[in-house]
C-alpha cells in the first residue's frame, strides 16, 4: 500500500526527499569545516560534489517510478505465464468473463430501454389515453368501453378541455402507393397537426406538420418513418419535396422521423384537418388513441 500513501502524500515525500538530501549536504560541509576548510569554501565544494540537487531529486523520483513499472510488468508476466501454463483454467476464466460481461451488457441495455427510457417522447409519463365506459362496466376493458371517438365527440372533448395541456387525435388506415410500376400497401395514419409537437421528437430530415398543413386549401403533404425511408427509398437524401401518389392523390413528402420514433404505429403520416369534407361525408372516422398531456402542475 506504500504507493497509495505516496500518491496522497506527495508533498510530504517531496519534503522528506529534500530534507534527506540537505542533511547530506550539511554533513559534508561539516566534515570539510572539521578538516580545516573555511565555511565558504566548504559549502562551495560540497555543492560542487553534489552535482545539482534538482537532478538528484529527479533521479530519485525516477528510481521509484521505475520500480513500479518493473513491478507491474513482472506481475503481468507472471499472470500471463500462469494463464499459459494452465490452458483449461484460462479458457474457462475467459469464457466466464465473456459470458458475464455479455450478459450484463444485454441486461443493462434491455432494462435501460424497457424501464428507464422506453419511449423517446417528451414527458410521456404524463400522457394518457382516455376511455369511455358505461356505468355497468367499471372493471377491465370489454363490453361498454371504448377508446375510439367520432369526430364530433373529439371536437367536443377538445373544445371543452381545461385539464390537459394538449390533445391529439389520430387513426390508422391503409395507404396504397403507386409509383407507375405497381402498387404497394403501407400502414398509414392520420394525425392532428399537433401530433408531432406533442411527442416532442424532431425529424431527422425536413419538418413536422404545422397548422398550415390542415387548412382547407393547403397542399397535400405527408411524412414517413425511418424504416420505410430506408427499405423503399434506400435512404435517399434528396427525397424531400418529391410528390408521391398515395391513395390516388399526389402528396409531397415534408419530413422523415428518426429510427426510434414509432408514434401512432404507422409507416407514414398524413395531417388531419378537422373539416376534411370526405371524412365527414363518410362519417366513419374513428379516433384510435387519444394521448393527452396533463397540464403541468
Amino acid at each position: 500500500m506504500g504507493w497509495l500513501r505516496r500518491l496522497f502524500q506527495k508533498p510530504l515525500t517531496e519534503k522528506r526527499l529534500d530534507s534527506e538530501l540537505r542533511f547530506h549536504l550539511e554533513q559534508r560541509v561539516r566534515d570539510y569545516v572539521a578538516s580545516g576548510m573555511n565555511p565558504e569554501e566548504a559549502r562551495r565544494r560540497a555543492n560542487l560534489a553534489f552535482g545539482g540537487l534538482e537532478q538528484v531529486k529527479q533521479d530519485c523520483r525516477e528510481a521509484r517510478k521505475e520500480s513500479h513499472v518493473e513491478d507491474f510488468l513482472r506481475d503481468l508476466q507472471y499472470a500471463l505465464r500462469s494463464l499459459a501454463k494452465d490452458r483449461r483454467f484460462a479458457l474457462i476464466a475467459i469464457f466466464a468473463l465473456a459470458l458475464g460481461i455479455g450478459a450484463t451488457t444485454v441486461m443493462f441495455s434491455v432494462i435501460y430501454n424497457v424501464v428507464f427510457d422506453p419511449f423517446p417522447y417528451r414527458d410521456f409519463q404524463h400522457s394518457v389515453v382516455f376511455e369511455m365506459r358505461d356505468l355497468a362496466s367499471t372493471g377491465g376493458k370489454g363490453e361498454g368501453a371504448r377508446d375510439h371517438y367520432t369526430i364530433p365527440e373529439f371536437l367536443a372533448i377538445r373544445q371543452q378541455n381545461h385539464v390537459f395541456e394538449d390533445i391529439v387525435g389520430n387513426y390508422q388506415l391503409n395507404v396504397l402507393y403507386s409509383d407507375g410500376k405497381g402498387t404497394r400497401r403501407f400502414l398509414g395514419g392520420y394525425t392532428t397537426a399537433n401530433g408531432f409537437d406533442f411527442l416532442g421528437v424532431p425529424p431527422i430530415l425536413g419538418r413536422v406538420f404545422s397548422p398550415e398543413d390542415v387548412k382547407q386549401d393547403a397542399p397535400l403533404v405527408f411524412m414517413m418513418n425511418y424504416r420505410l425511408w430506408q427499405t423503399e427509398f434506400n435512404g435517399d437524401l434528396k427525397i424531400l419535396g418529391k410528390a408521391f401518389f398515395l391513395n390516388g392523390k399526389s402528396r409531397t413528402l415534408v419530413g422523415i422521423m428518426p429510427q426510434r420514433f414509432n408514434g401512432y404505429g404507422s409507416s407514414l403520416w398524413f395531417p388531419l384537418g378537422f373539416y376534411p369534407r370526405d371524412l365527414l361525408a363518410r362519417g366513419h372516422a374513428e379516433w384510435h388513441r387519444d394521448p393527452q398531456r396533463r397540464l403541468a402542475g
Partner: protein
Amino acid sequence: MEQEKTELLKGTLDMLILKVVAFGPIHGYAISQRIQQISRDFFQVPEGSLYPALYRLEDRGLLQAKWEETETGREAKFYTLTRAGRKRLSMEMANWGRLSEAVALILSTAE
C-alpha cells in the same frame, strides 16, 4: 580514473549499500562515507547514484527507513535491512564470490 570507478560501481553499488546497511541503522551520508573508508578511498559514491539507489532498494522492500535523531540532534533518515534485503545480500555475495573467482581463474591462466 574517476570515470572507471563509477563504471565499476554501477553493477555493484546495490550490493555494497546492502552490506554497509547490514551493520545497523545508518543514514545516507554515513553510507557514502563508510563505503569510501572501507574501500580505502577507492570508491567515492556520488550522491547522484547513491540516493536513487537507496530509493530503489527501499521501494523494492530490501531496505526500510525511519526518521530518527542523530547524535547531533538533527532528524535524519536511517536505513536498515529488511528480511528480504538480508536474503538478497547473501545471494549477491555468493554470486559475487563465484564471479570474482571465475574472473581470477581466467586472468591467472598462464599464456
